[in-house]
């Protein structure tokens, strides 16, 4: 056998081997993806107050930080009531609401779908809830895990815990007015921004924040995933003098928003960690 066929045979053999290697799929986990649980809206807020100095701390933010963002000050009557209590806890979990004072159970209420219907009927009589509002309320309250604790203490409150599976629906009207879950915020986008968004044909946006990881979709198209590091953000904070304060509660939280421009359909889906 001369040399030429040998080289060709060798070449064919190499191509064959590499071809097998190329088509070989990367090792993939064959285990079935664990069935995801129904998204739970978890909100745990710890509030500490000191009737002596008439100051309070909420969700890990100090009284000074809360004052800077315009948190309201309580009236004297409220401080008188608070001074009589050591702690009060409101828990909404599953199908019950529990209220505890000084670690003793004060009351327990049914919080199933039927009881919520009664509540919506009562509210409907005063503020006229629409079917959409009731459906949204159910999205938020079904499978909610809410705990609000009021403690008489001089120490800083525990950091806020927020993990929302339900998307917060934000709508931008044609004139730029912003509303959240149907409630006007009083904020508006500038006409130039609205014009730019319309010209770029941007109809909706889905933003998910999960402890620093940002997932963004524009018109249903996924953009690269960004990860912000808390320590790294402090670098930007210092560089630009933003005075962002302690961002630990934000970096411990997860939530998402669906933003709709004009008359487009609401953004669906959840933000699952």
């Amino acid at each position, binding site marked *: 056998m001369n040399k030429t066929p040998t080289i060709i045979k060798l070449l064919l053999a190499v191509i064959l081997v*590499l071809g097998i290697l190329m088509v070989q799929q990367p090792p993939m986990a064959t285990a079935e993806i664990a069935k995801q649980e129904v998204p739970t809206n978890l909100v745990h807020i710890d509030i500490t107050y000191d009737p002596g100095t008439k100051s309070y701390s909420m969700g890990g933010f100090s009284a000074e930080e809360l004052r800077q963002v315009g948190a309201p000050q309580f009236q004297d009557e409220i401080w008188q009531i608070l001074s009589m209590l050591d702690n009060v806890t409101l828990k909404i979990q599953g199908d019950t609401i529990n209220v505890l004072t000084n670690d003793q159970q004060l009351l327990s209420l049914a919080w199933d779908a039927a009881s919520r219907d009664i509540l919506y009927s009562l509210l409907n009589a005063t503020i006229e809830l629409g079917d959409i509002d009731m459906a949204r309320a159910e999205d938020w309250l079904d499978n909610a895990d809410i705990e609000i604790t009021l403690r008489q203490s001089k120490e800083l409150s525990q950091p806020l815990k927020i993990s929302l599976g339900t998307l917060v629906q934000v709508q931008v009207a044609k004139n730029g007015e912003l509303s959240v879950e149907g409630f006007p915020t009083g904020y508006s986008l500038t006409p130039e921004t609205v014009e730019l968004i319309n010209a770029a044909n941007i109809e909706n946006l889905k933003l998910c924040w999960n402890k620093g990881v940002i997932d963004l979709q*524009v018109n249903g198209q996924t953009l690269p995933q960004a990860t912000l590091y808390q320590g790294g953000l402090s670098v930007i904070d210092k560089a630009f003098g933003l005075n962002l304060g302690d961002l630990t509660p934000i970096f411990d939280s997860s939530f998402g928003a669906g933003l709709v421009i004009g008359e487009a359909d609401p953004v669906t889906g959840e933000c699952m960690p």
Partner: protein
Amino acid sequence: MPRFWRVLLISIIIVLVLYGIYFALGRPVIPLPTISYKVSPGQPLHAIITSDGADELKLTLNTSGKIEIASEKQSVVALNYTPETFGNTLDLGERLLIAQKTVQSDGDVPESSPFLRKLINWVISYYYHVIRFRLSVLLTALP
């Protein structure tokens, strides 16, 4: 067989064997030498580089799908992309650019080039799927 064809065939075989080894190893990222860049006081980046006291900021592009900005002490921000999400970002950027020009009505609306878009997408996909590199730029603040 003429000498030219033999050399060509052997070269192809060597390239294929080397790539086969690279592929079998799981296509590891090949690090390229770091490019250093000095930033003088007064430049916009200087304030960011010096803000955590490290006086260094490293921008790393990993063509396997990660762009990271890190100071000597900590990571600042990271972006994870795929050719698809990168393409979506280009789409959005292009639409916003055209929209901005349209809104400004200066009559100079940039035209999108399908060939250029395909070329960019091909380059991104090639360096994402076939050969992966890591390119770093080290920004150092001058005193």
